[in-house]
């Protein structure tokens, strides 16, 4: 009973974050996102004994959610595509600083176009950019979520940043 109470507490803690994450990496409706999330929580519950204490719990539950998204899209034979980014100023400052364009760009303009830019970035890069700049995960966490080596994550982030910058230029956003 105590375990179930604890698990209910975990759901409360991660519900909003994970729902936002699903919306960021997919273009499903809110209802569908909630269904995916419910399945993710149930899967997390079933697999609680598999939780690896070397990992942060958040990394593990993000991984399960991402896998649930992939399973859902395999079932529907559509690739996940994020189309919803609720822009926060922190994110814009973060990414502008990372791209070393913070002095040259109007964050307002970047904010207006960020959804379009991210939709043009390849899926494998968009996935890491979302985790790094929107979910604010570090390399180790991203590595644990995506089950890829840290070196690979670093490469993907670097390439993703380059592609993001190129898309900025393509959209004629003056730097």
């Amino acid at each position: 009973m105590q375990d179930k109470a604890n698990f209910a507490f975990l759901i409360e803690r991660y519900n909003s974050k994970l729902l936002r994450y699903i919306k960021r990496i997919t273009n499903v409706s809110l209802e569908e996102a909630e269904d995916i999330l419910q399945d993710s929580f149930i899967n997390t519950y079933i697999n609680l004994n598999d939780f690896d204490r070397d990992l942060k719990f958040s990394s593990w539950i993000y991984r399960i959610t991402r896998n649930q998204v992939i399973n859902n899209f395999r079932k529907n034979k559509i690739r996940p595509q994020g189309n919803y980014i609720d822009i926060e100023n922190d994110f814009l400052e973060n990414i502008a600083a990372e791209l070393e364009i913070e002095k040259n760009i109007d964050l307002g303009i970047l904010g207006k176009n960020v959804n379009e830019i991210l939709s043009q970035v390849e899926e494998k890069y968009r996935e890491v950019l979302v985790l790094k700049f929107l979910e604010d995960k570090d390399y180790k966490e991203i590595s644990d979520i995506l089950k890829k080596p840290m070196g690979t994550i670093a490469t993907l982030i670097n390439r993703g940043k380059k592609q993001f910058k190129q898309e900025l230029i393509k959209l004629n956003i003056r730097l």
Partner: protein
Amino acid sequence: MIDDKKTANSIMEKIEKDHVVLKPRWSFLLKNYTFWTLGSVALLVGGAASSVIIFTLVNSDFDVYRYLNGSGLSYIFMILPYAWFIFFTLFIVVAYYNIKHTKHGYRYKLRTVVLTALVASVILGFVFYYFGFSHAIDSSFGKHFPGQKPFLEKKQQMLVQPEKGLLAGTITSVDEEDSFEFEDFKGKKWTIASNYLQDPHKSFLEKFSDVIIVGEIMENNIFKACSLRPMHVMGENGKLKKERMEKRDNRLPNKENILRSNNSKRQPQKIDERRLLQMRSTECGGDQPQ
């Protein structure tokens, strides 16, 4: 506005209603250990394959290619143990797959896992080779798999090419000062003219029974020996060696006596290894092999 508490309650209700239960811990442990076990077994098999490759390469006598068809490269292609290379590669892939699927396998890069598996297999290969397992593995594989032959058998057959100046087999008697009796590995009996042999080569006649002779055919079953050297088997399995010796002794019952009686006639000589190496390429009276 998302109501987290409401969502939590509805999910917990669903868990209750559907009687969702936790998967037992042992099932996850079993899965993880299975991947580790399969990965380790694949490494062991990779080690076995690499040991046979080492055994083959060490015993290949690369300097005899000159007497066989084509170039050194074609000789290498002729003796390479392809089946074992395929095995080796296959089990490295299997080891990689299993290690990658362990709990923390994703943290390692492809090249790290593959290189580690490769190095571990090669080290294991040397250990197996050292203890004579590679010979036993190759021999057993050659006997039990259709289309495969043990490497030593293949090598013995390959080295019996008298028309190309190459003969390998067993000395059956050394009665005369300038000739000895010989049976090649294909079972043909020869008289070998040994008067062209230099003394260090002649000394091998006293010490070894299985030899490789370089020379030329003089008549139907008379072969002129220009150089001679023992046919060593490096990394030979003790049990198989014993069996081989017993088989040879049964075939040639007088061999030891003949050699022993002959030894008493000759003065033991000290062999200069450096000179022997030079002599390997020395040809009979300037004749070049075909």
